[in-house]
């Protein structure tokens, strides 16, 4: 059996080199992971140790105060919740509708490609720019000032591209043969989308949307540009009221640590609360994804 045209000779030196390269690259890559983990660990350690003794039930339920011992983040929590109450319906309705139009209705042509590229680009525009846009349109032109509504709409603009793109991906992933089956029964386009496409795409849409929400809830820059007040002692009671939000609270307390050292502890405690909220949101996204994961 000498039919093979090439006679491969084993060269031990080559083999040694390849084995050495293999293990070297393994250590290199695991080192990068360890680096990221160490940074994260140090960060969490510092925040947690700063916040010890400050993060308690009173801190969550007290109003803001200039005295660090009395200060609480009730206002910021209500403000953040208020923002979400604006962002969630606005982005879900507009974002999912846009995605449905682009994926299911729009003719695949130059215009559709142009819109597509623009939406993808918008997703990577720095958030400060959205803050400026929100200030000009919602704050000034529509005269909403620095209210919850203005902030919520600005944040909606910011995360809308993310919701659109992730919903589009979810719609694209719905197999064509399911649409065919529905059309083949005499179903119209909207019936097919509502009864077949959307239920299958829903977990993907929700996962993307929740991740977008967690981006919105942690965003500071656009709110700073909108001019969210430094110190709000009044708890907002309507969408038109001025407000403060968790990331804003962190930002201002961090700025003022030079004047009052305890503000650093307050900021750390607030960071823990915000991280907790983000952690819960992301967990919900993962649970939804796993629960509804289907195989075709």
């Amino acid at each position: 059996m000498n039919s093979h045209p090439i006679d491969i000779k084993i060269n031990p030196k080559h083999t040694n080199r390849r084995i050495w390269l293999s293990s070297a690259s393994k250590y290199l890559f695991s080192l990068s992971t360890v680096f990221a983990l160490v940074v994260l660990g140090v960060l969490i350690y510092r925040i947690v140790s700063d916040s010890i003794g400050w993060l308690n039930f009173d801190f969550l339920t007290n109003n803001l105060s200039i005295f660090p011992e009395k200060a609480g983040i009730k206002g910021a929590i209500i403000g953040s919740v208020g923002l979400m109450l604006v962002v969630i319906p606005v982005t879900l309705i507009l974002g999912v509708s846009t995605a449905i139009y682009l994926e299911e209705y729009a003719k695949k042509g130059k215009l559709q490609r142009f819109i597509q590229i623009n939406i993808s680009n918008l997703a990577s525009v720095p958030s400060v720019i959205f803050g400026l846009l929100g200030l000009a349109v919602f704050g000034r032109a529509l005269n909403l000032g620095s209210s919850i509504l203005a902030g919520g709409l600005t944040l909606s603009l910011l995360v809308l591209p993310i919701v659109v793109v992730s919903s589009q991906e979810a719609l694209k992933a719905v197999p064509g043969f399911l649409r065919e089956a529905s059309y083949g029964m005499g179903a119209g386009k909207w019936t097919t989308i509502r009864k077949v496409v959307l239920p299958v795409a829903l977990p993907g849409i929700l996962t993307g949307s929740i991740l977008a929400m967690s981006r919105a809830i942690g965003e500071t820059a656009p709110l700073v540009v909108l001019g969210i007040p430094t110190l709000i002692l009044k708890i907002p009671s309507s969408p038109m009221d001025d407000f403060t939000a968790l990331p804003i609270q962190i930002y201002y307390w961090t700025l003022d640590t030079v004047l009052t050292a305890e503000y650093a502890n307050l900021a750390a405690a607030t960071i823990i609360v915000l991280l907790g909220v983000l952690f819960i949101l992301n967990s919900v996204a993962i649970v939804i994804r796993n629960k509804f994961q289907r195989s075709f």
Partner: protein
Amino acid sequence: MNQQHKSETVYEVKGLNLWYGDDQALKDINLKIGKNEVTAIIGPSGCGKSTFIKTLNRMIENIPIVRTSGEILYHGDNIFDKTVRVEELRTKVGMVFQKPNPFPKSIFENVVYGPKIHGIKDKALLMEIAETSLKSAALWDEVKDRLNDNAYGLSGGQQQRLCIARALAVQPDVILMDEPTSALDPIATAKIEELIDTLKEEYTIAIVTHSMQQAGRISDKTAFFLMGELIEFDRTEVLFSNPRDKRTEDYITGRFG
């Protein structure tokens, strides 16, 4: 009575041409499909047989670059006419696809999908439709105790029969089948073929198949397509035993394809 039925024409295709962009996929097709007949469409890959059957319920138009010319008369009316609504046409002309494509819903919800979108809400009536359709598709006995289970738990052959039941649930007149057994094993294939034999009592069936044996076993008439042309169309036993065209003979004797 039956004899009279046989002579009634369901489909009359006249001078049908179809293009994908600049590529012509169907060239001047003329044929008639009679009521309660099983018409098999055979030919090598890429000959246009799937394209042709998907033109009969205008599913082919889901591909945006498709253009057609010519006429397809369904009970005397041109299906390309502006007044024809595809939703209504496809209700009368059901389709079963190459790969079983149940919805990711329960067995029951799959079968009543069609009746539901056509406005039937009555639970008892839906249940009755589900039972009749599943019985007609010879699946009832296998699934009657687990109608609320997910359809993806069924075997491939059961899934395909479920898709047939789903198509029957809207009480169509014609059933188009696009290689319905190509993804199935021989036993499941035999069951589907048996089913087609009983279904033709009530329905008119057009079936694309890559298997000449299958065409021979189940069809009354056979159409042989080659490179977008209808080469020969005749009673199945005539076409297989005594083909008029040399190309048909070459194909059925296995000289190409």
